[in-house]
């Protein structure tokens, strides 16, 4: 069997593979424990290359067995050599994974496909989550496919398109007065009261988080089974960065790659805890008031912050904290150079990358992969006022000629 159980990330205590998320010994978070001999015997580069064009080509590394996945086609998104943007930034080997082309237009489809599959496997009666918006749309869509009701808790004031997207699939959207952290606390209390509901990023979190590892597998497969020199990852809770790190480790463990010394860099809007801790050499200090327009990264109390910080520091990477104006400019730069309209979190990532190059932390010849996690049409509110307006004319040739004169 592939799944050996769950294991505490702090004290190492082991548990059966059930919908539990907290260690009863030290209250630390749990992660999936695999039978690596079994996986090594079953997986191969050829098997993966002949698999479906989705995250499920990496099923040997995902915590699902003996059940058909709830699959909308998440993953195996565009892998692009960004020559134009690289030229602007001074990088010869810049690559982008563009998750704005996922079924619900963000990387969340990777984690939700795994988590909703587990909810079905565990026979849960409903699914739910706390979300800053991208997870909401993804969970709503996958729940519809799985024929499960979905209860989704979001902070007030997130982008309208993210709400509309979740509503259209029939999910119940509960807008909570306060921040993401308030919505998350309430959702956790509700998850505690309803153990037969699968809250994907709470009681299904150990399984959910595994879906993001596929970004590492795709990176390596697209680079011809080699690792990049550096990666740059947007951070909210820090879970994505940790999952990509685990993904590279998995491949090394089963000898699908020869070396693994990837430098991890994180990107977070100015003032948020993980970047602040890495950049200024402090501990992770939660923040109550969040002053950024990048709602999808606005988590004041990041559960995986300490783990993400450790990975960044051990790999000799760094974290940058661009202000919102830099992130907006970076969204525009990416759009104008590569034809990709990413959401503001992607702007944070590119703006942070720009700073890292300027500070000499990334060499011009390094193979760099940046992760674009969502679609620009989801966060138009943040960018519309920073674009030139349209030109209005009467339908006459001479009017147009005046415009271009």
């Amino acid at each position: 069997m592939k799944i050996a159980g769950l294991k505490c990330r702090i004290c190492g205590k082991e548990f059966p593979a059930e919908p539990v998320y907290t260690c009863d010994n030290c209250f630390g978070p749990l992660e999936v424990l695999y039978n690596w001999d079994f996986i090594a015997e079953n997986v191969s580069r050829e098997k993966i290359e002949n698999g479906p064009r989705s995250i499920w080509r990496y099923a040997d590394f995902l915590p699902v067995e003996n059940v058909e996945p709830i699959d909308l086609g998440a993953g195996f998104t565009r892998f692009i050599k960004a020559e134009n943007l690289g030229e602007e930034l001074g990088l010869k080997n810049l690559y982008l994974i563009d998750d704005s082309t996922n079924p619900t237009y963000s990387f969340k489809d990777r984690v939700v496909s795994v988590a909703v599959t587990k909810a079905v496997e565990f026979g849960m009666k409903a699914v739910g989550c706390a979300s800053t918006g991208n997870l909401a749309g993804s969970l709503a869509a996958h729940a519809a496919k799985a024929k499960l009701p979905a209860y989704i808790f979001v902070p007030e004031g997130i982008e309208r398109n993210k709400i509309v997207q979740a509503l259209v699939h029939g999910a119940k959207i509960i807008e909570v007065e306060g921040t993401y952290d308030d919505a998350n606390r309430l959702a956790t209390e509700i998850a505690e009261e309803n153990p037969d509901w699968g809250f994907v990023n709470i009681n299904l979190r150990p399984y959910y988080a595994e879906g993001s590892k596929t970004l590492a597998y795709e990176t390596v497969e697209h680079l011809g089974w080699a690792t990049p020199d550096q990666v740059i990852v947007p951070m909210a809770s820090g879970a994505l960065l940790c999952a990509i790190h685990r993904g590279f480790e998995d491949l090394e463990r089963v000898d699908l790659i020869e070396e693994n010394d990837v430098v991890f860099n994180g990107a977070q809007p100015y003032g948020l805890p993980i970047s602040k801790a890495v950049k200024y050499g402090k501990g992770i200090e939660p923040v109550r008031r969040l002053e950024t327009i990048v709602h999808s990264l606005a988590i004041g109390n990041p559960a995986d912050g300490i783990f993400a910080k450790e990975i960044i520091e051990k790999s000799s990477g760094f974290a940058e904290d661009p202000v919102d104006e830099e992130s907006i400019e970076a969204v525009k730069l990416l759009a104008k150079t590569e034809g990709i309209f990413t959401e503001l979190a992607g702007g944070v990532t590119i703006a942070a990358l720009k700073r890292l190059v300027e500070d000499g932390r990334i060499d011009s010849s390094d193979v760099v992969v940046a992760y674009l996690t969502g679609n620009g049409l989801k966060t138009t509110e943040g960018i519309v006022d920073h674009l030139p307006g349209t030109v209005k004319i009467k339908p006459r040739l001479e009017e147009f000629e005046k415009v271009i004169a």
Partner: protein
Amino acid sequence: MIRVKFPSVFVSITKERKIEVDADGKTVKELLDILFEKYSELEARLIKDGELTPFINIFVNGEDIRYLDGLETQLKDGDEVTFIPAISGG
């Protein structure tokens, strides 16, 4: 009385999810001392090297005590104190 809610992961120690404690006018730290007296195992698991574990957050009426007065936060009759595992991710 103070209403105290525990997460399911405490139940092997506390046996129940909801209790009432006579801690009106006391601080969160004093409430913890009362709970540790009642559930001795809880102290060893919740306090590491003299500090509260970062993996459990304590809320008073829905607000994280970090943003109140921490362990010195004062409690009054009718307050609800909730222990919640630190889990978040957008």
